C-alpha cells in the first residue's frame, strides 16, 4: 500500500520548518534578537528530543539519561576549545565520536536490563557523568567553562547568530530525514517489532539486543551533536547540561509532542520551552501552570500534540 506523497503529517512538518525558517526574519523585522537565541536553543533541544524518540518511541527504551550525551557533546567542544582547537569541524567530530562511544558503553550495559531497571541504570550513568563534570576542576568544575570563540565552518561564520541559526535548522532537518529513513527501513521494522512483541520477534529469529544497541548508539550520537551545538550557541558548558532534570525535560518533550512520531518531539520542544519562557515572565511558579497543561495533554491527546495536528496515524 503506497501512501500518497502529499499527506497531512508531511505538510504539517514542512509548515513547521517553514515557520522556524521565518524566525530570523521576524526577529530582524521587529528588532528582537532574543528570539533568534531562544529558537536556536529550542531547535537544539528538538534535535535531542528527536534522538530520544528513536529509542523511546520506536524502541520502547525509556532512557532517563539522555542529558548525558548532551553533556558529552558539549564538554568535547568546551575542552577542545580550552586547549586551543579552533576548528569547528574537529570539535564537532570529536563530540559526535565521543558521544557515540559513551552511548555504546552505556547502552551495552543498560540494555541487559529492561523496564524500571533500564530507567534507573540510564539515570545512574548520567548522574555519574554529571558528577565527573563537577569534579573536573581544570575545566571549571561546578562553575562551568566558557568558550572564547564559536569559530567558523568554511564560509559559515558561527559568530553570526543568523548563520548559526540556519545551520542548526538544516541539521535538525537532516536528522529528522535520517530518522524517518531509519524507521522505515528493515532495521526500523526489526526495532519496532521487538518493541511491540519481543517474544514474536525472537521466535522469528530477530535477536533484539543488537538492534536496540545500534539504535541506542545512533540516538546518543545525534544527541551528542545537539550537545555540541548547545555549547557552540551558548559559548559555555557546565555540568547543569547533564542534570537529571534535563533528561526528564527531554522525555517530557517527546511525550508531549507524541511518541513514535519523530516530528512530534520537535513540537514538544517548541511548546515546552516557549511556554516556559512566557510563563516565567508571569510568575516564578510557572511550573504550577505548565504541570496541569502536561497532565491534560497526556490524558486527552493519546499520540501527543502531533497526533492532534497530523491526524490519528503517525507520519
Amino acid at each position, binding site marked *: *500500500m*503506497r*501512501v500518497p506523497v502529499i499527506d497531512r503529517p508531511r505538510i504539517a512538518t514542512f509548515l513547521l520548518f517553514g515557520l522556524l525558517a521565518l524566525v530570523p526574519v521576524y526577529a530582524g523585522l521587529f528588532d528582537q534578537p532574543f528570539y533568534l537565541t531562544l529558537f536556536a536553543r529550542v531547535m537544539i533541544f528538538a534535535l535531542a528530543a528527536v534522538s530520544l524518540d528513536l529509542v523511546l518511541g520506536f524502541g520502547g527504551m525509556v532512557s532517563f539519561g539522555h542529558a548525558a550525551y548532551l553533556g558529552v557533546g558539549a564538554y568535547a567542544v568546551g575542552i577542545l576549545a580550552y586547549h586551543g582547537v579552533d576548528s569547528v569541524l574537529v570539535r564537532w567530530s570529536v563530540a559526535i565520536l565521543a558521544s557515540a562511544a559513551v552511548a555504546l558503553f552505556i547502552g551495552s550495559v543498560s540494555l541487559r536490563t529492561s523496564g524500571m531497571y533500564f530507567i534507573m541504570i540510564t539515570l545512574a550513568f548520567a548522574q555519574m557523568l554529571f558528577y565527573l563534570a563537577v569534579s573536573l576542576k581544570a575545566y571549571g568544575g561546578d562553575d562551568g567553562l566558557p568558550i572564547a570563540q564559536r569559530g567558523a565552518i568554511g564560509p559559515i561564520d558561527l559568530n553570526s547568530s543568523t548563520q548559526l541559526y540556519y545551520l542548526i535548522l538544516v541539521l535538525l532537518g537532516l536528522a529528522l530525514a535520517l530518522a524517518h*529513513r*531509519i524507521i*522505515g*527501513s*528493515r*532495521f*526500523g*521494522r*526489526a526495532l*519496532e*517489532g521487538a518493541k*511491540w*512483541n519481543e*517474544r*514474536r*520477534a*525472537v*521466535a*522469528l*529469529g*530477530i*535477536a533484539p539486543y543488537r*538492534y536496540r544497541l*545500534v539504535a541506542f548508539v545512533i540516538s546518543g550520537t545525534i544527541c551528542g551533536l545537539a550537545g555540541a551545538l548547545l555549547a557552540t550557541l551558548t559559548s559555555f558548558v557546565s555540568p547543569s547540561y547533564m542534570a537529571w532534570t534535563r533528561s526528564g525535560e527531554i522525555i517530557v518533550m517527546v511525550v508531549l509532542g507524541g511518541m513514535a512520531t519523530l516530528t512530534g518531539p520537535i513540537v514538544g520542544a517548541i511548546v515546552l520551552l516557549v511556554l516556559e519562557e512566557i510563563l516565567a515572565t508571569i510568575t516564578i511558579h510557572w511550573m504550577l501552570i505548565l504541570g496541569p497543561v502536561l497532565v491534560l495533554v497526556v490524558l486527552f491527546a493519546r499520540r501527543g500534540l502531533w497526533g492532534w495536528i497530523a491526524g490519528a496515524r503517525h507520519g
Partner: protein
Amino acid sequence: MAEALLTVSGVIKRFGGIAASDGVDLSIARGECHAVIGPNGAGKTTLIAQVSGELRPDAGRIVFDGADVTHEPAPRRARSGLARSFQVTCLIPSFTAIENAALAIQARQGHSFRFWREARGDRSLNEPAMAALARVGLEGRANVPVGALAHGEQRALEIALALALEPRLLLLDEPMAGMGPSDAARMIALLDGLKGRVAMLLVEHDMDAVFRLADRISVLVYGKVIASGRPEDVRADAEVKRAYLGEAA
C-alpha cells in the same frame, strides 16, 4: 530411527519443586507430523518452549538436524529452521498482516542492519510475504492491521509467519485454540496440506484433529512420555486410557 530431524533426550525442566519436563524423550523424523497430547499441566508448552529455545532445560539434550542446539539462543534456532506458533496469539499488533509476514521474511533473509531502503516498498520482502499469506488464505486481508483481524484470521497469520521462515520443523502450540468448528476445519485442512513437506510437532487438545493429522502420537503426563507410537496403538494403550483419554470420555 536412523536419522531423526529432532531428538529430545532426557530433558528435565523444573519450576520450583515441580518438574514440568521429567526426563522427556522424543524423536521426530523428517516430514513427520508428531502430536504431543496430555492433560493440562502435563508440560506440553514447556516442551515446545525448550525445543524453540525460549527455555533452557536443566538437563538433557536437544539435537536438531544433527547439531546439538541445547544451548543455542532462540533467534538462532529460528534461523536454522525451527519455527513456532503460539498458544495465545502472538503477533505484532500495530503492524498489518503483510507487515507481520514481511518481518518474518526479512528475518529469514539474514540480519536486518539495513538502514536506508524503505521496507514498505521492498518487493523482495512484500512478494514472499504475500505468498506466505496466500498459503493460509489471507491474501485478501494483507493490509488489515492485526487488531482488526478476526480470531481465526489471527490464528492463520500465526501459521503464515511460521511458514514464512521456511522451517524444517514447525512447532505448533494448540493451533486450534479458541476456534469455532468452521475455523478449526479450515486449520486442519491447512495443516493437512503441509503434511509430508514440513515436519510438525503438534500440541493440540482437539482429538479429532490429532487423530486426523498425526503420524505418531506421544502422550505426556506429569512431564513424562508414558506412551508413544502410531495413533491406533496409542488409542488402544490401556495406560493412556486411564491417564488421559479415559478422563475425557
